[in-house]
Every structure is written in structure tokens, then in C-alpha cells.
């Protein structure tokens, strides 16, 4: 499967960045986002209680690249594969459907992690975002610890898409809402009480954001990573098997019903 994985990673790169202009466009978009964050932070800094608002925004954005790619991007990959007929061609091979989805999802990760690193790096280079050298490793560790949880959520989302044949836009809205409510762009303290509760309920998102911010701002002893790390893993223990089961059921249903994968 290693060869298949590296092929899908190259496919993802080639689809996203078919030309140098596309890479330049991505960099330009990233720079524009950072500029907006920098000036937003400058405008609202005096009223922000949580320290440096630019760093707050930057970490919020970068932290959720990979999780949201797994939540929405995997479903998108499944939809594209279904539309081009490659999903059925892969299913005709002697390989379990869940392994196909794991490889499809896994192909998104290096790109998203690189985007996250680039965002933080550009933030540091252009706008003075400061991160202790030791914190980079902690941030990466947190991303890795969160992978099973978000893979599980991605598998659940993809199986819903396979089951109902639609809903990619809805998954996009759900992902965006989860990011906002979990505190990617502003502290959840300002939310109404019910939404604050929802933020706590959306724990893998908010847990990852809170822990990453704490690690990045230095208010975090290395030993205390154990507890949130374990909590993130626990989410993975919950969502990953559920996602794998949902995928298995979705493909079994497709095989039973006999409907082609028409995902709109």
C-alpha cells in the first residue's frame, strides 16, 4: 500500500497545484489571510483579553488545517473518486474499502501539515509571530495525537456522503461551524451559554485548539501534555472504530442496493 499511498499523495499535489501559478496563488492567498489577521489584531488588540490576538488567530487557523482536511477533504476525495470512476476501480481490487479511505485521507495529511507549518512560518517571518523552538515539536505531537479522532470523524462524514449520495456542502458548513464554535477565531467565552456548552461538546476541536494555544504560548509544562493528549486519543478510540464501522456499512449497503456511487 506504500506505493498506492505515495501515488495518491502525488495525485493530490498535482490536482491542487497543477502549475507554478497555482502554488503562487496558494502563497498569495496565505499571505492575504495573514495580512487580514494582522490588521484585525491591530484594530482589536486593546479589547482582546487573551494576549496577542494575531497569534490567537494564526494558531487557530493553522491548527485546524489537518483536522478539517480529514473532516471535509476526505469526503471530497471520496466524491471525486466516485465521479471519476476510480472508487469503483479501487473497490474491484482485493483491498478492504476502509483501507482505501484511510489511504485517501492519509494522502491529504502531509500537504495540510505543510500548509500549517508554512502559515506559522510566514507569520513568524512577516508579522513577528513568536514561537519557542521547543514548542514546534509539541504542536506537531498534538497534531499526531489528534489524528485518530479526526480520521474517525472524516470516515463518519464520508460514510454519510456515500450513504445519502449528497451532503458535501453540508459537511463544509459543519466543519466551518465546528471551527468557529470551538474557538478558532475568537475565545468561546464570548459565546452565548448554549453555544459555549456546544463548544465543550465539540471537544476534539476545542481540546486541540486550547492545548495547542497553551503549548504555543509557553503556559504548558511538557508533562501536562499527557492529560489532553490522552483525551485526544480517547476521542480517537471512540470515533475511529465508529467511522470504520460506518464505512463498512455504507459500502456493504452500496453493494447490496446496487446503486452506483452518484455523489452530488
Amino acid at each position, binding site marked *: *500500500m506504500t506505493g498506492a499511498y505515495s501515488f495518491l499523495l502525488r495525485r493530490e499535489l498535482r*490536482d491542487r497545484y497543477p502549475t507554478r501559478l497555482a502554488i503562487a496563488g496558494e502563497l498569495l492567498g496565505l499571505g492575504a489571510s495573514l495580512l487580514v489577521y494582522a490588521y484585525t489584531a491591530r484594530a482589536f488588540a486593546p479589547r482582546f483579553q487573551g494576549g496577542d490576538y494575531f497569534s490567537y488567530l494564526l494558531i487557530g487557523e493553522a491548527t485546524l488545517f489537518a483536522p478539517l482536511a480529514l473532516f471535509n477533504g476526505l469526503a471530497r476525495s471520496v466524491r471525486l473518486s466516485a465521479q*471519476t*470512476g476510480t472508487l469503483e476501480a479501487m473497490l*474491484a*481490487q482485493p483491498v478492504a474499502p476502509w483501507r482505501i479511505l484511510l489511504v485517501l485521507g492519509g494522502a491529504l495529511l502531509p500537504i495540510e501539515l505543510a500548509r500549517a507549518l508554512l502559515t506559522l512560518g510566514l507569520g513568524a517571518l512577516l508579522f513577528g509571530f513568536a514561537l519557542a523552538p521547543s514548542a514546534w515539536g509539541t504542536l506537531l505531537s498534538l497534531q499526531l495525537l489528534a489524528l485518530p479522532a479526526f480520521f474517525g470523524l472524516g470516515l463518519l462524514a464520508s460514510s454519510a456522503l456515500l450513504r445519502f449520495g449528497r451532503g458535501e456542502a453540508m459537511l463544509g458548513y459543519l466543519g466551518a461551524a465546528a471551527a468557529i464554535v470551538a474557538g478558532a477565531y475568537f475565545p468561546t467565552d464570548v459565546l452565548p451559554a448554549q453555544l459555549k456548552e456546544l463548544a465543550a461538546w465539540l471537544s476534539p476541536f476545542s481540546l486541540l485548539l486550547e492545548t495547542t494555544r497553551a503549548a504555543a504560548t509557553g503556559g504548558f509544562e511538557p508533562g501536562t501534555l499527557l492529560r489532553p493528549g490522552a483525551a485526544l486519543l480517547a476521542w480517537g478510540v471512540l470515533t475511529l472504530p465508529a467511522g470504520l464501522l460506518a464505512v463498512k456499512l455504507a459500502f456493504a449497503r452500496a*453493494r447490496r442496493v*446496487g446503486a452506483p456511487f452518484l455523489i452530488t
Partner: protein
Amino acid sequence: MIRTRALSRSFGEKKVLAGTTLEIVRGERVALLGPNGSGKTTLLRVLAGLLMPSSGDAWIDGISVAREPLRAKARLGYVPASESGFFPRFTGRENLLFFAGLRGLPPRESLRQLERLRALKPLESALETPFQFASSGMKQALCLARALLGDPPVLLLDEPTRSLDPEAALELHAFLATGLADKTALFVTHSTEEASRCATRVVRLSDLQLDRSQASAPPPAFESPQGVLA
């Protein structure tokens, strides 16, 4: 090698396969004829493990496709009715190496098999052409090459010469008849000429339905397909 027993498949109210019973022994190349909508493709998709039978079962090399689809798939290669199912920005070679990897072939073995498959003429140019720019003939060759990866003993081919020009079709006929001599194959076709050229036996799907035994005597035109090849 390929066996179905009382195999039925419905789509909602529509019964497409009704108690299909078929047995193909090792080394046979069977052409399956039938009008459009008679269930030929459905039968192949069930055998390929992509569809569950509504009732009955099918076996590839003694392995149930309904209960052990992965093990059954490991023993067969499937050429679908459509030429899609490849990654458009990648060359034929890259696509085939991907599917070889998915099949669990080590890279070196995959390359060795690709070299061997060059005997399939249109594949030569398809290997270096991005799939999006490949001709229908190249795409068809890629579909066949993909099915042959891993050297499976059983082949299921859904109209393998559908989009080929007469010359390319003849080449493929020769390949099917001689290059696949060690394979057991079931192929769908609308062409009686193709059936007589490539098959060792011809069956009509209507003769397999409702638990009637499979067409024991081929129509006169197909009595000695080997003779045609000779």
C-alpha cells in the same frame, strides 16, 4: 473455476438475473451473449464482488463472492464496461503501478508485469500517455492490463473490444485467444463473430436463467471456435 447457482439479482422491482446457473471449468473462455438489459453486466459485477446477489451465490475458484469478496477478488481480474476508473493527469504506467500497489504487488514485480503486458499492442503508447489524452483503444488496453495485474487465473471482461477499430479488435481477439490460454475467462459481447473467434464456448444468458442448465450445445455457428482460430 467460475460457478453460479440459482443466482438472482433485482434492482427494486426489476428482476435482472433470475436463478442464473453457470459453470465454467478451468481454462475455458466463455462468451456471454444476450440483448441489452438482459443482465450480462450485472452478472459480471456480481462475480467481480461489486454487487451482492439478491439470492443464490457465485464462486470463483471455490470462494464465495458474496461471503469472501476480497479473497475472490484476489483471484480475478475485471474489465468493466466503461473505460473510466483511471486518474486523468497520470500516465498509463503510473496508473497501472498504482493499481498494482493496491493489489499488493511489490514495485519490482509490478514493473516486471508491466513489461510482460507490453505484448498488448496499444498498451505500448498508453503507458507513456496521460490518461486524459489516451485514445479509446489505449484506454481499453489499460483496462485489460489492469485486469491482468497480479496474474489472476480468472478474467471477467465486459465488452472488451467495444470501442476498438476493427484492426485493434482483431489484435485483441488474438490476444484473448492465445495470450490468455492459461486463463479462465468469461466475456460479454454482442458480436457473434468475436465470440466465435475468442471463445471455447458460447452461452446465451437467457439459457442460464430460472435454474435451467446452461446452454449445453452452442449454436451451430459456434460449434468449433477453436477451428476458426486454427
